[in-house]
């Protein structure tokens, strides 16, 4: 028979590209992308207006580095978390809840190819969002400090992007874990915005342990790189009568931070993929 069975099968790498292409097309046409873009533009617009009108201390009086630290450095992580959760949080759970997986999965394609393709599409969409925010900050920076773009800002953008990749892996893992899209998006946001920060604080302040196991601790390099000199790895501040008590705070060095991000990236990517491979299309 001269049917498909005798033809050479499509390679899994090609499948990754196909899944990425059509998922990106779906993102790019859907309301969500533009809602996210609008949120970012509103944040950037508010920052622009407030800084332009009030000229708050730390923004325009401390040099270019200070400006990028206060603007980009304070908000980049939030942009990363929101876009990872928005684009990745329901990427897999949506295939189950919205039943789109019934169209895509029962085909001669590996689940892993679908997973990686969707991951690339979500990463592309959120990279665009992050880049738009960076460009808005850059435009402001160039307005106040023409011709002066600190190298640290470029580094910070690169770190933020690595953080985005790691956060995307985590959001995908959550997305594979939960059946409901809204729960997986919400859990990703709550975890990345609040839970990790609480863990960081409790671990260093209360227990006096460096929170090397926390993703947001590693992501501290995104804003820390804009502080010159780079913050100390460990700061002990005495307080109370006669300095009886001490407060300990930690900062990951750049290599440590990158390592934490990479470990999260790999572990979460593998975990999410394993969960997706085992997940069943019931209901």
């Amino acid at each position, binding site marked *: 028979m001269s*049917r498909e069975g005798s033809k050479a099968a499509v390679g899994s790498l090609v499948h990754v590209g196909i899944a990425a*292409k059509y998922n990106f*097309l*779906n993102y790019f046409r859907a309301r969500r992308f533009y809602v996210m873009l609008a949120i970012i533009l509103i944040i950037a617009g508010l920052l622009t207006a407030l800084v332009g009108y009030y000229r708050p201390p730390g923004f325009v009086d401390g040099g270019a580095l200070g400006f990028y630290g206060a603007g980009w450095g304070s908000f980049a992580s939030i942009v990363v978390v929101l876009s990872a959760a928005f684009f990745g949080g329901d990427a897999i759970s949506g295939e189950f809840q919205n039943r789109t997986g*019934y*169209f895509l999965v029962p085909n001669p394609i*590996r689940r892993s190819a679908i997973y990686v393709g969707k991951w690339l599409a979500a990463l592309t969409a959120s990279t665009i969002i992050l880049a738009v925010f960076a460009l808005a900050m850059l435009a402001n920076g160039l307005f106040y400090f023409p011709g002066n773009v600190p190298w640290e800002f470029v580094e910070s953008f690169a770190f933020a992007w690595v953080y985005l990749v790691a956060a995307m892996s985590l959001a995908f893992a959550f997305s594979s874990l939960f059946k409901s899209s809204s729960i997986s998006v919400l859990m990703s946001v709550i975890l990345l915005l609040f839970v990790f920060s609480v863990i960081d604080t409790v671990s260093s302040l209360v227990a006096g342990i460096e929170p090397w196991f926390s993703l947001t601790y590693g992501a501290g390099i995104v804003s820390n790189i804009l502080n010159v000199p780079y913050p100390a790895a460990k700061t002990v501040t005495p307080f109370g009568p006669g300095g009886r008590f001490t407060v300990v705070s930690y900062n990951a060095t750049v290599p440590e931070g990158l390592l934490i991000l990479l470990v999260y990236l790999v572990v979460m990517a593998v975990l999410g993929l394993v969960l997706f491979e085992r997940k*069943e299309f019931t209901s």
Partner: protein
Amino acid sequence: MPPSIEARQLTKRYGQFTALSGLDLSIQGAKCVGFLGPNGAGKTTTMKILTGLIRATKGTALINGVDVASDKKAALASCATLIETPEIYPALTPKEALSMLCEIRGVPRQDKNKRIDDALARVKMSEWADKKVGGFSKGMKQRVNVASTLLSDPEVIILDEPSSGLDPRGMSEVRDIVTSLRDRLVFMSSHLLAEVTEVCQEVAMIDHGKLLVYDTIENVTAKFAGGGGAAEVGFAGNVDEQLRVRVSKLPGVTSTTKSNDRHLIVKYDTAVLTQDKLLESVAGLKAGAITFSQASGLEDAYLSLIKETL
């Protein structure tokens, strides 16, 4: 090698509940096999396992000899599927969604557009080809889903209640499409006897997760329909009592029953008559017979088989 679908001791449990229990089924060759059973019988469960949507608790599912659980990509290489009512990415158009499947299935680039156009034409969705799926009705989406099984040139097609969500016209169109696919192995589930009788040559009946029988429709009917054959004859005009008596007096006919205004169910003695002989003699009456099928015989068999497992 002929196309094949095989289930070996297929079992699926959801917690304590056994949805599928040691199902053995081996189908080979180009033909249409109906998978018949009441709601909740385990049809979808079987087909989800065959297409890698869920995993069997025990047992093996093979398509064209390849184990689906260990290599879905190879097993489905020449198999198109339609399980339940899939949704398509809402921001895509039918053309784009079908393009995605063409690319995944390795349809040659130069054939892609023609295949998509043909498939959409067959489900009468050509004029919607470039509209976003998000706004489509259930029936329109299901038409695109049916089109998705016609893109590549698969040896095996697995259809899980393909006409669900369609209006009567859509259902009849799907039957025509499935009938035209008989040069491959089509495995189609349904809870509609008429659908299976009309398009399938063989039938596998399932209830409570157990396979009751798998055979040709004729054999199933002969074995389980209280003996003898049965055929449903449709007439151009209404069937009156006089006509019914004329048919029942044909040699070999044991009983006749009106199933609706224009249809008669004719039971006959298979020792005296074969189906083709009955058709000839009914036609010989010149009473306006226009259709001839074996629906009611299967209905008999179905009812007696399903009752038996209760």
